[in-house]
């Protein structure tokens, strides 16, 4: 007799992870990254991509071994991560993935290189700078260059490469984007629309203007003298996040379909939920209620209690505000028990990969479960007396982990959380 289909506590299909891949400043591929992460190695370094004169922050976790404009870098990183995940899953044929693509990508803007090129080629008799550029652009009639400036470019090219089905969705919910991309995949599989989804978060957008913009919001660490020690989540001396680049990909599948084709189940997305904040453009509600509701909704969706969590992959950006709010909200949801749960920030090593971070942290969470090694929070030298958490300081820890909470909170009030568990569900 055939086994009855596996259903979760709400009688929905169970969502399995069957392929993962990633790339970051620490290297290409899961193995290289996991080796560095578990060794507590930092990928943060001095910015070499552009001159840093006049900048308050001169460090970042850029991917320096790829080259191209930002859309191209973001695409290349997404391709690397996607290639690895799809190959691992062994699903479909090359270039023919049997499901939709949900991709988290950074906002798109014309680069100064092109702006300057247009301006200098223009008729100086035209007064207005933008009219000058428009005149040149209109004569060039160059689909190729301008196509790359369009918002759907990266999603389209990824869809083309992997042969995903339907229109690709490009998400931009700031630092929650990676988690939201996964959530969209989870929802589609639970609705029974598809047996598989490819979720990719990719972000290579470290430009001088990006650094300046975040600096103007006082969001970035200025610990320029010791780049590898600049990202200090949960420490008393944390002074901001370190902007970084990377990508990660996950192949999600209906559990039964994955088992039926003999796939290796790497883990289960047990719960996914969100909550928007209405307080401020860059700050959370002081009482943490939006984050707390996002957490509660996630436990509700997963059908488990906070007691079941044995590790938290923190958002942990290293900004004074985020880490304080995250710790406070967790305490309100977990109660006293929070002080005994291991929690660490991958960003202490990778920096903050922004749009990609939710996907990268989901992938590293799966490695954490698979290998029973919890990555450390490095640079934890000066504990913050206001944040009493077991942050797995400075060294990775061998510990069996089966049920993990992963947090992602973004500017603009977007909060998303995932609960990832070991197989079986």
């Amino acid at each position: 007799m055939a086994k009855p289909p596996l259903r979760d506590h709400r009688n929905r299909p169970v969502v399995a992870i069957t392929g993962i891949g990633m790339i970051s400043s620490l290297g290409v591929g899961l193995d290289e990254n996991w080796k560095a992460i578990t060794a507590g190695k930092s990928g943060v370094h001095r910015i070499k991509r552009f001159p840093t004169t006049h900048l308050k922050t001169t460090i970042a976790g850029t991917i320096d071994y790829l080259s191209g404009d930002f859309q191209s870098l973001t695409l290349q990183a997404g391709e690397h991560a996607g290639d690895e995940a799809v190959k691992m899953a062994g699903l479909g044929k090359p270039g023919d993935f049997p499901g939709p693509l949900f991709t988290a990508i950074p906002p798109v803007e014309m680069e100064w290189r092109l702006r300057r090129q247009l301006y200098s080629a223009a008729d100086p008799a035209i007064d207005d700078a933008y009219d000058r550029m428009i005149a040149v652009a209109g004569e060039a009639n160059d689909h190729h260059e301008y196509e790359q400036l369009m918002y759907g470019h990266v999603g389209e090219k990824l869809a083309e490469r992997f042969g995903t089905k339907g229109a690709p969705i490009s998400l931009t919910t700031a630092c929650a984007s990676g988690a939201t991309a996964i959530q969209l995949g989870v929802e589609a599989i639970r609705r029974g629309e598809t047996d598989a989804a490819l979720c990719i978060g990719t972000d290579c957008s470290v430009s001088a203007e990006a650094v300046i913009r975040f600096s103007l919001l006082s969001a970035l660490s200025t610990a320029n003298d010791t780049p590898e020690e600049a990202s200090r989540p949960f420490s008393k001396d944390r002074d901001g996040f370190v902007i970084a680049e990377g990508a990660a990909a996950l192949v999600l599948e209906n559990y039964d379909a994955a088992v039926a084709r003999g796939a290796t189940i790497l883990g289960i997305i047990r719960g996914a939920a969100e909550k928007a904040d209405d307080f401020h453009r860059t700050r959370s509600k002081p009482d943490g209620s939006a984050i707390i509701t996002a957490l509660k909704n996630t436990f509700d969706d997963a059908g488990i209690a906070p007691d079941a969590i044995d590790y938290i992959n923190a958002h942990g950006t290293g900004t004074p505000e985020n880490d304080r709010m995250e710790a406070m909200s967790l305490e309100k949801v977990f109660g006293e028990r929070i002080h005994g749960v291991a929690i660490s920030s991958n960003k202490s090593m990778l920096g903050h990969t922004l749009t990609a971070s939710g996907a990268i942290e989901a992938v590293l969470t799966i490695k954490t479960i698979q290998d029973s090694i919890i990555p450390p929070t490095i640079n934890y030298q000066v504990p913050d007396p206001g944040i009493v958490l077991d942050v797995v300081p400075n060294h990775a820890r061998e510990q069996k982990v089966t049920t993990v909470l992963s947090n992602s909170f973004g500017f603009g009030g977007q909060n998303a959380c995932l609960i990832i568990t070991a197989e079986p569900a």
Partner: protein
Amino acid sequence: MSREVWITGIGLTSSLGEGLDAHWQAMAEAEHPKPVINTELCAPYPVHPMVPLDFDKQIPKRSDQRQMENWQRVGVYTAGLALADAGVAGDADILSRTHMIVGASGGERDYAVDSAILAEVGKAASPEEFLNDRLSNDLRPTLFLAQLPNLLAGNISIVHKVTGSSRTLLGEESAGISAVEVAERRIRGGQGDIFLVGSAVVAERKDSIMILAGGGWGWKGDPVPVWARPEKGGGSINGSVGAFLVIEAREHAEARGRQPYARLGPVFSDRSTRRPGEAAANAERQFAAISKAAHHHPLAVITGASGIAAPTREERDFLAGLMAKGEVSTVRAASNMIGTAIDANFASGVALAALALSRKGFYKPTDDTGFEKPLATPPEAIAVMTWGVWRGEGMGLVEAVS
């Protein structure tokens, strides 16, 4: 689970005015509907510019308005109209579980800063260092947030208190189609009861015009209707549009005593490389599925056709085929009246379809090629169609609720 999806609130702003009456008057009641096109503002590219909006009415705090770029203000304003229209504005309980999906691009740059830099950067010993210096000193800290695509949704949360969830799909027509599609499927599948979906686009922005110009997509010179453009070289006349919809599960609407404008049927999106025939092949599959789901036949079509030569010719041939077979009664290009609305293309099409069904009427032809036939009896089912300027094909069904 498969639930019925109702459209219960509409916010619409464009060159034609603000709100449903303004659009109905201009597009259905006027003897000879006439679009509002400005040929000087972004010459040589004509645009349908946004009417002036009194932002204070939907964004009461000036401090909030200052934190937004114009496109965000238009979006937050129009979202407010939709929430008020659905009768949920100010209802803290419903808003706290209203999910939001926005299709958004990005905000306008600071032209003054860019212009000043461009005038001098070429003369600098180190242009890159010069850029660092000037951007560090001249950019306003809040401008970044005003430009971020996800901050349209962020500002809607702050101003209107929509906080169930907040997702932003990044730009172009496909984002606007997927926003409605995902919301429709989640409601139908029991993954949420009530959603705010939509987009806002400001066409008369020089940085947007630059992309339109660079891609060779812009119509130049005197405006002509979209169906006449393919033979004249083709091109898009972009329009400023804010379009937001409140859509919800029928049970949810009934429980709070609301009647719908219309029922939202299935929505489909797809991609193609736009080799000849590919977009039409997608549309054919989509139309077959929609036609099967429809309770009324034939269907009328509202499209946001851009006027760009190849896709518009292909779309025209595709629709002509359906009309010849009697499967489509008539076609209206909303883009003739409100312009190519990019991110807001699909949501504005759904809004106009729902409006027509609720008023038991239809829009006047706006086309001098004879392609848009007058309609003797008002439609009871409308297929809303959007083919992107460069990519993405979508279609959705909107039906009268008897």
